[in-house]
């Protein structure tokens, strides 16, 4: 189902061709990172800390090195010391010193699973045995596991270099404080008839990609190295590995393998530079693959958070003021997505008075990484729950309440700049008119909830090349890793501009030596920005086609027209060449045609989505069953609607998992207790109904096709929508994620006994 406001017409874009890489994927021929092997290859394994917080007093590797088959062992002491400053990396700013210390700990370990040493051996079993023979003497320190504990005066300090300059230059676990302010908040609340204030907590959760991190590296004796790995950003792996290894970027080639999921978690490096170091030390290629436990313990989950949210409105439903305090777990090193959380939490609304204070807080948990609209899901859980309550208080339909306060073109964003054309109102209208929202929900213990979400999307840099073949077909070369139909989408953009079939374009994802620079496949940027680069490359090829026809027909290039794959010139119907016919003339008119496109996209259309969920709560077990769920999303213009719908469904499924079950469970010593997928409970197809989708198309200004990013925003609203549905089914406002059966059961028990408080409702 599509609700389109796009005036442009397309012939290929918007259709649903079979994906070009489909056959290889479904037949198992596609090569993933773990499929790569080289002659004489060694296998690497990591020794990881059993403690959440400890000082490393000594590391003895003698026994491990003596084990037959062990070829090299490295520790943090083998890695260069890097500057304690920010650099541009995979997912944006990266502190190189922290990155290197996260790869291999130096004087302290900062979380359960922090890597301490790495071994290369002739096979993985010997490497694992050698890891067990490494002796580390630790001085165990008290772990700090929550933002509340980390922010208390006298809390154990993770990084003594971190200073709080707002409070007298003291040691601190607060890595940064941001504030956004508009209007006069106290005055604003005075004009409110209803004010809701609650504290919310959301659990640390993992991206949950099925394919563990992996990589093969060979350090060439000529100084030129190659890395094969599963990544969302081959150029980011190149930059970060080069920085850690202290070699020029141009000395490293990264070959991106097919990727078995990333969702933001594969924008940085964990193994690749270590494999490179081991290869340098041994002179042989080294392969490293994480176990599931390694992935859960030591790679980027997203932050758990505490959010205090207060919003007020008038009795006729006009929002007047918001006051928000939010603290996100950064993990062991600074860099939680709290800034994005702050800038998204009330982004859908026009609220005249607001203040938001946001804190990035170190805790003894793994360094967090990006996860699909990083920071926004936590934030929306708080704000969208309160918006729902305010709508209830006012007796206004929750969609109508949002429409009364909806951000539109010209509304100031949280950080200040005004929105350009956005599709929030259209998204709400599409939800209101959806079959799901129009249907009746009947039966006991059932409730319906809606919520909405915002995500910026990012532009950044992409390069692309379009080659025209001698038979009138084309190939398009990109450097953006394909995580969800990228090849098909870019082939379609090429085909649209060239006026040929999508099936007549071969898409190729190239290594870092074979294509110009591309930023990561992240931030919902690839279809949009790489699409713009491909569009430009295809247009460049068309420009050259016109020049060739002009040469043949003795005309000026501007006198040549090109449409639907046919070259013509006005006033002379005898002059007509299809691209296939023209291709045969390439050699005698100047040689092969290659179009080039490079962009740094500055104008990117942000996205809004809405979720509608029906639930049934089992009164005896507190299990929440999802009866029906619909995602409505403004995508600007869908390149391939099936893959757009897939993104919407994927984000919704992950959001429901975040809502109901997923959480990192640590014991009192700071050890992760659920580091396997049996205990870290992600939803399966048995837990979810068919997820319905409604595509809304409000073209993004400044983009040649009108596309907006589609990969992230669908995850933002599901937890709040589920919470609102539970509230309507049970009368209980849940304020802690996940809303798992034990937590909801406790809240239901408290309600039955008349002891409900906010904390009790949360199941705390």
């Amino acid at each position, binding site marked *: 189902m599509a609700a389109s406001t796009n005036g442009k017409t397309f012939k290929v874009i918007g259709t649903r061709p079979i994906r070009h890489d489909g056959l290889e994927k479904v037949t198992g021929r596609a090569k993933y990172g773990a499929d790569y092997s080289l002659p004489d290859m060694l296998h690497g394994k990591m020794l990881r800390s059993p403690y959440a917080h400890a000082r490393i007093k000594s590391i003895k590797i003698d026994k491990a090195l003596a084990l037959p088959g062990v070829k090299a062992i490295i520790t943090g002491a083998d890695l260069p010391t890097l500057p304690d*400053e*920010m*650099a*541009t990396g995979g*997912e*944006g*700013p*990266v502190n190189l010193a922290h990155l290197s210390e996260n790869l291999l700990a130096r004087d302290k370990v900062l979380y359960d699973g922090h890597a301490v040493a790495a071994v290369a051996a002739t096979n993985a079993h010997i490497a694992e045995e050698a890891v067990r023979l490494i002796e580390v003497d630790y001085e165990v320190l008290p772990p700090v596991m929550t933002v509340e504990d980390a922010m208390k005066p006298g809390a154990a300090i993770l990084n003594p270099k971190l200073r709080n300059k707002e409070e007298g230059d003291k040691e601190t676990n607060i890595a940064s*404080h*941001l*504030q*956004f*302010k508009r209007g006069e908040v106290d005055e604003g609340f005075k004009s409110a008839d209803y004010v809701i204030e609650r504290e919310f907590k959301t659990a640390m959760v993992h*991206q949950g990609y099925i394919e563990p991190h992996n990589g093969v590296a060979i350090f060439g004796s000529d100084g030129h190295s190659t890395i094969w790995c599963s990544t969302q950003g081959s150029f980011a792996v190149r930059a970060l590995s080069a920085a850690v290894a202290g070699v020029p970027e141009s000395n490293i080639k990264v070959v991106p393998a097919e990727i078995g999921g990333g*969702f*933001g*978690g594969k*924008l940085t490096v964990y193994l690749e530079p270590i494999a490179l170091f081991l290869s340098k030390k041994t002179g042989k290629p080294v392969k490293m693959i994480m176990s599931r436990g390694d992935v859960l313990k030591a790679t980027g989950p*997203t932050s758990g958070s505490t959010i205090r949210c207060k919003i007020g409105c008038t009795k006729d439903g006009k929002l007047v003021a918001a006051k928000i305090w939010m603290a996100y777990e950064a993990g062991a090193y600074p860099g939680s*997505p709290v*800034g*994005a959380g702050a*800038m998204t939490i009330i982004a859908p609304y026009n609220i005249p008075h607001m*203040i938001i204070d946001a804190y990035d807080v170190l805790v003894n948990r793994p360094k967090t990484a*990006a*996860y*699909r*609209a*990083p920071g926004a899901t936590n934030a929306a859980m708080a704000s969208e729950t309160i918006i729902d309550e305010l709508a209830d208080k006012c007796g206004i339909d929750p969609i109508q309440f949002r429409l009364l306060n909806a951000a539109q073109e010209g509304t100031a964003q949280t*950080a*200040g*700049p*005004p929105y*350009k054309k956005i599709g929030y109102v259209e998204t709400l209208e599409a939800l209101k008119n959806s079959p799901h929202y129009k249907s009746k929900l009947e039966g006991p213990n059932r409730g319906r909830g809606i919520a909405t979400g915002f*995500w*910026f*999307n*990012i*532009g950044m840099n992409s390069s692309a090349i379009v080659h025209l073949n001698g038979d009138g077909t084309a190939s398009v070369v990109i450097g953006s890793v394909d*995580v*969800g139909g990228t090849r098909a989408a870019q082939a379609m953009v090429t085909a649209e501009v060239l006026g040929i079939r999508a099936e007549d374009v071969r898409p190729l994802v190239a290594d870092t030596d074979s294509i110009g620079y591309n930023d990561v*496949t*992240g*931030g*919902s*940027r*690839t279809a949009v920005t790489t699409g713009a680069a491909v569009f430009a490359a295809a247009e460049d090829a068309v420009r050259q086609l016109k020049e060739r026809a002009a040469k043949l027909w003795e005309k000026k290039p501007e006198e040549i027209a090109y449409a639907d794959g046919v070259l013509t010139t006005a006033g002379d119907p005898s002059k007509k060449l299809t691209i296939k016919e023209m291709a045969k003339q390439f050699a005698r008119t100047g040689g092969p045609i290659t179009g080039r496109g490079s962009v*740094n996209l*500055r*104008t*990117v259309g942000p996205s809004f989505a809405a979720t509608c969920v029906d639930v049934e709560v089992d009164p005896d077990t507190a299990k929440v069953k999802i009866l029906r769920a619909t995602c409505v999303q403004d995508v600007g213009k869908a390149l391939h609607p099936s893959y757009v719908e897939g*993104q919407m469904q994927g984000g919704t499924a992950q959001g429901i998992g975040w809502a109901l079950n997923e959480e990192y469970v640590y014991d009192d010593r700071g050890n992760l207790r659920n580091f396997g997928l049996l205990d870290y409970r992600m939803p399966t197809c048995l837990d979810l109904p068919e997820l319905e989708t409604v595509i809304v198309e409000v073209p993004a200004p400044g983009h040649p096709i009108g596309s907006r*990013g589609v*990969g*992230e925003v669908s995850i933002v609203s599901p937890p709040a929508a589920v919470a609102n549905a539970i509230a309507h089914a049970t009368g209980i406002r849940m304020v802690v994620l996940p809303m798992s059966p034990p937590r909801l059961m406790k809240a239901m028990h408290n309600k039955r006994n008349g002891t409900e408080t906010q904390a009790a409702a949360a199941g705390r």
Partner: protein
Amino acid sequence: MAIVVVPALLRKLTNGAERVTVAGRNVGQVIDDLERQFPGFRDQLLQGVELKPSIAVSIDGEMGTGGLLDRVKETSEVFFIPAIGGGR
């Protein structure tokens, strides 16, 4: 003269002013003039001679390229905001 909308926590440098008028034809020159008028801005916005990677610039609703050469017009409205990455 362009207008810079000052981030909330940096308003201590401008005696609480939210909007200040600055001279400059690009982002670098705008920061130079901010520093001249309100000492302390440069340290907050620059790392060496480059914009801090954690800072993004919005000029008239368009995101900057991350460099100091982005053009600023006489009538421009300039925002310094946290840089955003992403996760898909």
